[in-house]
């Protein structure tokens, strides 16, 4: 019953005080994830390609950066930028800003490895064929390697997207009023409704994550109709 009753707070869970006050709740998680995903995706391509560079002075620094971030807990990265960014850019950096920044750095490093694996999974002969017809290395990457690599990367990207969306809940720790924080606030106001409040939080995350995965599955099926020659992702199914 308490759980049903919680739905009277639905607006607080979904959008926080928005539009009258500041944005919060699940909407904030979605916005945070959208920013983190789009920016980190862009940087991941740069990082991933950098790590594959034949030049040592490019490859090594990119590799170090990726490895350092990947071997640090997300919580540490969030804390670190929470304290470091205001120091660097001034006090006007919001908690939302530092959370987004941390998630971009984290997401970019993880996705860089997906990018790298995807590029390496394209048969070597493709690059050779592209070069011998006279394409430059950049053109070969742009028109031949990347389109094939993206199809290989797609499943990994989507599962990372889902997990990054859930990871936005960690922004709670530095005081971003997102869905988890909303649950905490409600449960503090009504201590006897703790279970119900957290159940609502779980429901919110589940709904969005599940929708992304469903959408992803249908997207993969649709793209799967473009046959990719011999490295079809499902054996026997072309």
């Amino acid at each position, binding site marked *: 019953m308490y759980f049903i009753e919680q739905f009277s707070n639905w607006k607080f869970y979904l959008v926080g005080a928005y539009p009258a006050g500041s944005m919060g709740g699940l909407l904030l998680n979605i916005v945070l994830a959208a920013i983190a995903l789009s920016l980190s995706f862009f940087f991941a391509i740069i990082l991933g390609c950098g790590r594959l560079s034949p030049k040592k002075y490019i490859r090594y620094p990119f590799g170090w950066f990726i490895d350092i971030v990947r071997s640090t807990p997300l919580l540490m990265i969030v804390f670190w930028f929470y304290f470091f960014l205001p120091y660097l850019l001034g006090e006007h950096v919001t908690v939302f800003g530092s959370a987004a920044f941390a998630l971009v750095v984290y997401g970019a490093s993880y996705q860089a490895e997906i990018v790298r694996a995807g590029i390496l999974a394209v*048969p070597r*002969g*493709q690059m*050779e*064929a*592209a*070069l*011998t*017809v*006279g*394409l*430059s290395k950049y*053109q070969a990457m742009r*028109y*031949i390697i990347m*389109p*094939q690599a993206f*199809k290989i990367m797609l499943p990994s990207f989507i599962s990372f997207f889902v997990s990054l969306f859930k990871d936005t809940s960690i922004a709670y720790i530095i005081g971003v009023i997102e869905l988890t924080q909303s649950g905490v606030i409600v449960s503090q106001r009504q201590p006897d409704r703790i279970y119900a409040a957290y159940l609502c939080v779980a429901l919110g995350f589940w709904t969005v994550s599940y929708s992304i995965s469903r959408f992803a599955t249908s997207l993969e099926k649709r793209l799967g109709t*473009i*046959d*990719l*020659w*011999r490295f079809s992702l499902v054996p026997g199914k*072309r």
Partner: protein
Amino acid sequence: MIKFINVYKKFKEECIPLNNVDLSIAKGQVVVVCGPSGAGKSTLLRVIPRLEAIDRGEIIIDGLSVTNSRANLAKVRSEIGMVFQQFNLFPHKTAIQNIMLAPMKVRGLTRKQANKKAMALLERVGLVHKAGNYPSQLSGGEQQRIAIARSLAMEPGIMLFDEPTSALDPELIQEVLDVMISLAREGGMTMIVVSHEIGFAKKVADRVLFMDNGVILEDGSPHEVLISPKHQRARDFMSNVLHVRDDLREENATFLN
């Protein structure tokens, strides 16, 4: 003209695919390279567009060194066509898109010009009706003919064939060889073909090379190298290649009788 000057390449210890190779191939010559596996035949081809770097020596094409670090590689490569054993068509593009890509991106042709050129090439390899198919919808022989057309689209002066028929079903080999034979007969194009298709060599080759352990052992007319090679190693190889064929023929004959 392609000139190898003292070219040396080593992969690891005891694996020297090119051991001080000196070679000069005149413009328009059709050269067939044969030899046992691991002899360095493929490497001999792959160092020309610098898909592999060499350790020592120099390779000169039409007076320009391609091994020089300042060489304009994209320019050099666009003058050289290469056909691979595994076809290496671009799987996300249709047959005609495979052919059109480089002329548009490298030579700056418009879509219309590139399309016209591609259709002419498809006609030449007899695959106009497959223009819109993806590589996965084509047989091995068809894929290889598209790959040849893709190389020809750049109008290269040199065509390199790296075992173009080795990955094909026996019944599909001839259609690819026919395209290559017509190319060779047309003349004007330097062709280097790594292949064990003795029939092809006999028909159109101006010159046959036999390689073993990174060294060119035999170099001469098809008759000299295939029928009466000077070295024992080459003689053994030739008799093996030719004998297998004879045995098969006999077997088939008995089977058919």
